């Protein structure tokens, strides 16, 4: 009996809840650690980035309008769905990585799932921890609450393919931001598989958008986009990051990048409520008190 012929997956971008090829029609080969061809990923264009920002912008208000409890349950749902596809994720990670054996890939997958669970729990707590009443010197009610900044552009770290991406994405969306993610250029396939999970987890369309392709081409339109409210440049090289930060300055876009400690992806230091805060504004409400 002949072996069954595999049906190979087409890895597309994820924009506005749909899996699409690039408007440019381009693709680029993604190879494994041994140089073997894994797939042709979409080589996204500036136009794709702009489309993703538009999708993120239109989804953000609705997402932020969901109750914190609902967002928490949805993030937890992401973990549940990933858990049921652990093998697939681990295989994806193992194929992509340099010297990444099966057990390391499985550990990375498990850590990524647990990270979703951890951030899910923050949805209805970070405001309690980061906000609070301010005892001003006068008859006023004064309360500060963190609010999502809006649309966040995330340049995902290059590798490993899954855990750093989840570590940077979860704290952005838990508060009600939407995201445009530039996937790892060398190993983008896990990001696309993650998008499939998000699509099945009640994450509303447009809350997370994933663009694949060449960084040199995609970072500038993302960094310079006026509708992007905050940028996570953790995945940028030094020069690329500096250029992007200069571009972002023109629209007063806040720039965030993971610290050395936060790049220890398996460590506790890689997850923090202060990362949620980094993509929030603080809103303070005053109201007089009196008969």
């Amino acid at each position, binding site marked *: 009996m002949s072996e069954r012929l595999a049906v190979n997956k087409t890895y597309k971008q994820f924009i506005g809840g749909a899996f699409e090829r690039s408007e440019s029609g381009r693709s680029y080969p993604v190879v494994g650690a041994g140089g073997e061809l894994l797939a042709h990923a979409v080589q996204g264009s500036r136009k794709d980035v702009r489309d993703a920002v538009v999708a993120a912008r239109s989804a953000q208000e609705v997402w932020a309008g969901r109750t914190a409890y609902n967002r928490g349950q949805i993030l937890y749902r992401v973990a549940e769905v990933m858990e049921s596809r652990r093998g697939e994720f681990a295989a994806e990670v193992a194929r992509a990585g340099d010297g990444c054996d099966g057990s390391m890939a499985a550990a990375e997958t498990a850590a990524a799932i647990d990270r979703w669970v951890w951030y899910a729990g923050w949805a209805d707590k970070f405001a309690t*921890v980061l906000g609070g009443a301010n005892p001003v010197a006068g008859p006023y009610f004064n309360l500060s609450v963190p609010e999502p900044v809006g649309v966040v552009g995330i340049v995902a770290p290059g590798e490993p393919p899954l855990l750093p991406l989840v570590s940077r994405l979860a704290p952005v969306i838990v508060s009600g931001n939407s995201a445009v993610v530039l996937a790892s250029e060398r190993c983008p396939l896990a990001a696309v598989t993650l998008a499939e999970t998000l699509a099945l987890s009640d994450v509303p369309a447009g809350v997370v958008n994933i663009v694949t392709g060449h960084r040199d081409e995609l970072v500038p339109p993302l960094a310079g986009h006026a509708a992007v409210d905050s940028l996570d440049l953790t995945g940028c090289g030094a020069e690329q990051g500096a250029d992007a930060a200069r571009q972002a300055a023109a629209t007063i876009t806040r720039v965030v990048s993971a610290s050395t400690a936060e790049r220890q992806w398996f460590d506790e230091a890689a997850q923090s409520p202060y990362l949620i805060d980094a993509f929030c504004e603080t809103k303070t409400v005053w109201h007089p008190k009196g008969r």
Partner: protein
Amino acid sequence: MPPAVDFSLDYAPAPESTAPVRLAAQYGLFVGGEMVEPASGRLAATTNPATGEKLAEVSVADAADVDRAVAAARSAWEGGWRDLPGAERAKYLYRVARLLQERAREFAVLETMDGGKPIRESRDLDIPLAAAHFFYYAGWADKLDYAFSGRRAAPVGVAAQIIPWNFPLLMAAWKLAPALACGNTVVLKPAPTTPLTALLLAEVLRDADVPAGVVNIITGGDATGAALVAHPGVDKVAFTGSTEVGRAIGAEVAATGKRLTLELGGKAANIVFEDAALDQVTEGIVNGIYFNGGQVCCAGARLLVQESVADAVVGKLRRRMDTLRVGDPLDKNTDIGAINSQAQLDRIAELVAAGVAEGAELYAPQCELPERGFFHPPVLFTNVSTAHRIAREEIFGPVLSVLTFRTATEAVAKANNTPYGLSAGIWTEKGSRLLWMADRMQAGVVWANTFNRFDPASPFGGYRESGHGREGGRAGLLPYVELVA
């Protein structure tokens, strides 16, 4: 002229099916992860208060049973639960939350059968909120370092938790979720008239693979509760119920080194200013006092209404009361279900009679009560003075006492003129006045232009004789942690 329309429409019966509920004839005690026969050998019936029919027999735990349950909790605590990473405790609690969501309908129907509350409430409030509490505190289990900056939160040990009959599963969730999240183990005692959803929860805990002995559920009455509170193996006591029993528990626990939190009675003021949106107010007052038939510790039992709008508000209230549907709690259209027990019905009747005898004016809509079961129509008293029993004592039934005031200062004085301090309601369109009033309320929860809102993220609990300690929110963790440097 348009033809005359007949407005005397009525609802057809819309009973919720009891098919999802599978009752056993007898229930043992949930100890060490298993249902066990009680050492006492004693059983007591739990009945459906809407029909008087026996639903099942449950065990009555005696001192030996309490001892066994506390030992199981102690051994589970020392045997691993206290040292389990927070992230793993979280996962167990998330599982419990999800299982409750999956079996929500079954729990809701059982809650209504055993306790008499309208299915609309058990379905839309009790059960979803219970699941939400587990979900919320699951998220804290691995984040305690962020809850108390500068201190490490260590578990306390074995918690004895005694809960009331008015929100049986919800109170179990309020007690269990923070205790478990913080790494404690528990012996939980539900109320003797409403043990069944707690016993069904035992099944959920088992299905979630929560380690044996982490939660033990024992049934019984006051004697069982007293034995549990007095047990030397208990490190922390949490009680929700009457102020009278709370006092006794306080005396028992005093000087033993056990930690104590109490959520006790209330006699909340619902304060209406003349500028309030009176139609919203009417709904808020009705929700405040007739929700769960007024068998709610934070019920808005005293309506304080500004003199200038008193007649208007009372008129609207009477009209609204006329539309309330009292009857079969399993009917989806029912607003006021059964009173939980004969004893409670007697207590309500006694206080209503006292109100009339002391000179207050009673209004109750004409409504047909079911022939069987324990039912009481909604009642409104006007001409109530602050000295009347119905203005001072917690009735725990669908009875509203209306008092009036002229100034905000007078409203504050009257609202706080009670030994209780659980909740308060303020109705005005003027924000500055809301906040001025809120500052002056001797109450743990102040609802402004709303009433009876509950959320796992929001702390709940009383001032003064309404108890101490909070449930919900970050504050709800404190009773269950030892803060160490």
